[in-house]
């Protein structure tokens, strides 16, 4: 320290900031902005059966904005997103609340929290596909219900339906809600809750008026995870709906498979804009910077 004190620093403070931020900037430039620019550029190109080539056409966008499919797919994707978000939030909040406020010892909190992550030790695809034999016409769920006598005929809507898709999504993504909510809840000053109780608030009022507002940033971060993951998904929708349902991600993946890269790029640009818009609206409600 004393050495620095005598010498003039080699870099000015501003330069130091630039140098420190440079690695991140370079990474973002090369791996985010450049690919995105390419994506936007290609979305105006033309294509044939086997290749795509430079052009400046609006056909790809015109098709997106004039086709009924676009509307239907976005509507379906948003429906799936809302349902998934709703269940992920309810379940995620409950689990996090239990961990943060009902489990008293830190050891148990950590142990139970790790327990929540166990499903993540296997791959997404496997966790998703294992629902198929469970929910099938002759699957475990239907056989059990038939056995108990609750139903007379197998429930067809259990598998290859929107129900199955949402179920798989909730199973896959709830943890993304649990983690940030748990994190914010752990930071809530316990004396606030004591103060509320001393002032005569019931447990329910404490939950609604103290914990929920303070956990909002966590819920919002979790929501961003869930919404972006569901909006961009293409594989869960295909498998769980038996290929009968479609999402924006599936449309893009189909177009890529058929070598229609410019069409896929245009779709990706529109999806990106939509998701950015949704997130922009979401963060208006909660200042997540407080959290970070």
């Amino acid at each position, binding site marked *: 320290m004393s050495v620095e004190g005598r010498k003039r620093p080699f870099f000015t403070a501003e330069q130091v900031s630039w140098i420190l931020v440079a690695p991140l900037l370079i990474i973002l430039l090369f791996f985010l902005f450049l690919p995105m620019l390419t994506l936007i550029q290609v979305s105006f190109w033309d294509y044939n*059966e*086997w290749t795509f080539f430079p052009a400046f056409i609006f056909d790809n966008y015109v098709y997106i904005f004039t086709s009924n499919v676009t509307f239907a797919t976005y509507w379906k994707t948003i429906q799936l997103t809302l349902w998934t978000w709703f269940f992920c939030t309810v379940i995620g909040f409950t689990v996090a609340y239990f961990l943060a406020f009902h489990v008293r010892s830190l050891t148990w909190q950590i142990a139970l929290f790790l327990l929540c992550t166990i499903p993540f030790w296997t791959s997404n695809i496997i966790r998703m596909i294992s629902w198929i034999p469970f929910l099938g016409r002759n699957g475990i769920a239907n056989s059990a219900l038939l056995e108990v006598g609750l139903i007379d005929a197998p429930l067809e809507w259990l598998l290859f339906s929107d129900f199955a898709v949402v179920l798989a999504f909730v199973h896959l993504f709830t943890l993304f809600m649990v983690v940030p909510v748990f994190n914010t809840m752990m930071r809530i000053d316990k004396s606030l809750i004591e103060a509320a109780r001393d002032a005569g608030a019931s447990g329910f009022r404490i939950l609604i008026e103290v914990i929920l507002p303070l956990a909002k940033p966590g819920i919002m971060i979790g929501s961003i995870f869930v919404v972006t993951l569901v909006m961009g998904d293409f594989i869960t929708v295909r498998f769980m709906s*038996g290929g009968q349902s479609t999402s924006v991600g599936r449309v893009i993946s189909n177009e890529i498979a058929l*070598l229609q890269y410019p069409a896929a790029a245009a779709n990706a640009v529109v999806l990106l804009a939509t998701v950015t818009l949704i997130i922009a609206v979401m963060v208006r409600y909660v200042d997540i910077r407080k959290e970070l």
Partner: protein
Amino acid sequence: MKKIPLKAALSRRSVLKGAAAVTGAAIGSGAITGFPTIWAQNIKNVTLRQFGTGVSNLNEFAAKVSEDLGFTLEMTALDSDSVTQRAATQPKSFDIADIEYWICKKVWGAGNLQAMDTSKIKNYDKIVGIFKSGKLTPESVIAQGTAPHSVGFVDGPNGKSFASSETGWMTLIPTIYNADTLGIRPDLIGRPISTWAELLNPEFKGKASILDISSIGIMDAAMVCESMGEVTYGDKGNMTKEEIDKTMAIFTDAKKAGQFRAFWKSFDESVNLMASGEVVIQSMWSPAITAVRSKGIPCVYQPLKEGYRSWGGGLGLSANLSGLELEAAYEYINWYLDGWVGGFLMRQGYYSAVPSTSKNYMSEDEWGFWFEGKPAQGDIKNPFGKVMEKAGTIRDGGSFYDRMGAVACWNAVMDENKYMVRKWNEFIAA
């Protein structure tokens, strides 16, 4: 580096030809004698990278190649869409493309494949007529769609457009083909099925499926609509926009009415749908039927009165191949048509492009069952030793000539492909 004695290398290949070294050299023609001696030593260093659909990219082939030919064959199995993608966009990633004829039509224009000199293919004369004149027998009528012979030849080594007859320069060397139809669960249907129209029969509401690969699915859809008498096609393999609209309208209505349980994209999915009983009637591929049956579940590859939708595949050479690698590739293709692979494929229910050589690698009973449509004398096993059919069974659809002679259309790429794909996507999204 270990030196390989020339004699050993020669005799290894001679064994493959099924003859002693001397006669091998005589009947094996150019394949053995035509190469300089140095070649026998260098061949070990050659690695050929092949990619294709799962059906014919089996590790057994790679092992046999290194045993018989001495060089390494690396194989990558992908689904049809990815195969097309790679053939069109990643020419440096492969040496040999194992693709279907309709894919060839799609990607030939990209210039990533080179035509092959048929004078270097020693079994060329024995290749079945379907791939040369387009006719199975001289009396045959050529089916609709992208018939293999129509995209099988180009004018010369660098030809870009397809020739209408044999030119001596082949785009793909045919290796595998079959006649596809609907698969059914006879135990769950309980009555005879004889027409494609049954796929949309309300009786099977919620229990039908169709494959979601647009270029193939549209053909199955067309077979159904034509059979229902709802749409009349000029050429199912090259539909007009109006024909596409009508076809997809019928299927969209059926989808909205809940006719389909699911759509499948991969082989395994079709097997699971059928084996679990989720679906009782659907588009299916031959080995998928045998996969269901080998689980002890009854499943029939139902011959239908309108005929089959057929497909064919072959090996294409990367435009980047030259010199020693190119020679090795020719050697590999000659080996492929020599019978061992053909026998292997035929014992799975496919057909070989050169049935006469494959016969040498099949027992009389196997040949009788798979090719001639005769009742099996003993249990029929697949190449992996698993019993596929019990004694007394007859192949669904009968003999080679009964099945391949009843092809109604070939898998195809249409002029209106872009439009068709959009309509198909709308159907899936509906």
